[in-house]
């Protein structure tokens, strides 16, 4: 059965939808009336944010909605009382007594209606991302897209500024391009923040020689912000596995390895923020989702084996499935919630602008760097543009030590993760393919319109 001591002592997940919703409607409101949205789905299409919402109308109709990319998760089960019991966390509903087969996810970009007396929700997609088709792409076209993205960033950060008043801001800074872009924008639009950089210890005394840390330190120094360095020991990484599985809501290696990084980052932020004795939760901004939007993923080889395999698809098609796959896995928001930290992913909020880029252009060498240079220019230092791709779970090129290597060295492979996830959730590991398939959490197709 679920082990209550896997939860950090500082967190009480009370059930229900506890992940704070970040909402900005087209008229500038932070409140979204789902009743009005059902009548006019365009209201949802024009709403900016990460949200998982459950509202009840005066006549007892239940309305649910989830943001376009599915950044916030929404699971539900219909109780014997005919009421949908909702939670951001799958394990909460299992702990409430629902069997895994009775629990559904509301897919990303959907709203749902459960009328009084009915037993199944009616699901309807309110929006989809429009992905740019393969086509000729001139410098002029690039300039147009860049302006669109820059304008969108202004809108997004204005909304974040309004929403996050009085919150202490943190940025997850890896020393790579994506997080540096967020750091630069945050400095410009929101002012001061604390950067957090992660590495796995590769020295006997528990420190790290990671080049990623060195670059992160330099970026933070040049931006004039404080940097908190998190160096996790191998033991600390391994001790975080159950938390990563439970709150990351996934057993797949890439997402678990990411979640392990984020457990360390979340713990460090919570400790750092706790020192200032503020009742207002901290806010973390990350560079997440950019890799999906630019299809910037590649398998990794370690110990003679390939990890993080990808489907063999064109760059444009790969982008589409990677973005759709954001529906499942909670390696960031869920993990940060376990530490009482709000998180916003600015690139996710700019997804429509990025998705409009032609798919064929993505496969151009260093397309991502070219796009970032057009958007950010000299605001991002040349030494960051020139770096090879960094991923905290792989470890930097200088150390080769990351959460992936720690896990594999200890025999914690894909099979182990599936088995442990099954143990935590009391599910036969062989049936896990029923719960995440093609990048989606299991949803009820019988109610789909």
């Amino acid at each position, binding site marked *: 059965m679920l082990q209550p001591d896997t939860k950090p002592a500082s967190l009480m997940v009370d059930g229900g939808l506890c992940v704070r919703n970040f909402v900005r409607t087209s008229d500038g409101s932070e409140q979204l009336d789902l009743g009005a949205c059902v009548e006019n789905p365009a209201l949802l299409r024009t709403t900016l944010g990460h949200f998982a919402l459950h509202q009840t109308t005066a006549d007892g109709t239940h309305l649910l909605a989830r943001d376009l990319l599915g950044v916030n998760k929404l699971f539900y089960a219909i109780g014997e009382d005919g009421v949908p019991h909702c939670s951001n966390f799958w394990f909460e509903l299992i702990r409430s007594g629902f069997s895994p087969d009775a629990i559904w996810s509301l*897919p990303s970009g959907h709203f749902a209606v459960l009328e009084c007396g009915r037993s199944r929700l009616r699901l309807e997609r309110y929006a989809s991302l429009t992905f740019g*088709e393969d086509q000729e792409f001139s410098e002029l076209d690039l300039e147009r897209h860049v302006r669109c993205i820059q304008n969108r960033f202004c809108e997004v950060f204005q909304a974040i500024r309004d929403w996050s008043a009085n919150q202490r801001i943190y940025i997850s800074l890896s020393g790579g391009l994506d997080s540096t872009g967020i750091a630069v924008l945050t400095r410009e639009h929101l002012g001061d923040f604390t950067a957090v950089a992660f590495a796995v210890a590769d020295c006997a005394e528990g420190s790290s020689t990671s080049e990623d840390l060195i670059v992160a330190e330099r970026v933070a120094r040049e931006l004039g912000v404080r940097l908190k360095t998190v160096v996790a020991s191998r033991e600390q990484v391994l001790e975080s596995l159950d938390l990563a599985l439970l709150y990351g809501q996934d057993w*797949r290696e890439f997402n678990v390895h990411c979640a392990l990084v984020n457990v360390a980052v979340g713990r460090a932020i919570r400790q750092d923020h706790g020192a200032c004795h503020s009742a207002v939760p901290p806010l973390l901004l990350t560079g997440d989702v950019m890799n999906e939007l630019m299809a910037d993923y590649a398998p990794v080889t370690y110990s003679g084996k390939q990890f993080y*395999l*990808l*489907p*063999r*698809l064109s760059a444009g*098609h790969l982008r589409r*499935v990677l973005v*759709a796959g954001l529906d499942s896995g909670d390696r960031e928001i869920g993990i940060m919630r376990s530490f009482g930290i709000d998180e916003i992913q600015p690139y996710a909020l700019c997804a429509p602008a990025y998705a409009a880029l032609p798919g064929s252009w993505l496969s151009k060498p260093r397309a991502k760097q070219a796009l970032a240079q057009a958007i950010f220019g000299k605001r991002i230092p040349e030494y960051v543009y020139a770096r090879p791709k960094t991923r905290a779970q792989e470890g930097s090129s200088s150390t080769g030590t990351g959460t992936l290597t720690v896990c594999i060295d200890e025999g914690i492979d894909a099979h182990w993760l599936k088995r442990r996830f099954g143990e935590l959730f009391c599910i036969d590991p062989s*049936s896990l*393919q*029923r719960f*995440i*398939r*093609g*990048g*989606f959490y*299991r*949803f009820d*197709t019988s109610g*789909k319109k």
Partner: protein
Amino acid sequence: MILNAQPVADQLAAFVRERFQISASDANFTYDVHLWEQSYVDSIGVLEILAFLEGQFGVRIPEDALFEEDRASINGLAGLVAQLSAEVENGKQLYVT
């Protein structure tokens, strides 16, 4: 063009056998076997199958197909493609180039 399910099924079966290296002597691999539950195809493979069907037959497979159990076999997917091709013909669905 409205597609007939049988040739779709044959092409899909050939793709799955080749891509996922299913032995010709595997008697369990039929056109009605549940591809995901019987572990012939993993979560990455699901996406490749859908991409193959979209590219080969010019239809957009909806995400619902992932969790419709009657679409989890060669025959099930072929039937879906035939249905979708009819919808394209009738102007109900956008043609996927």
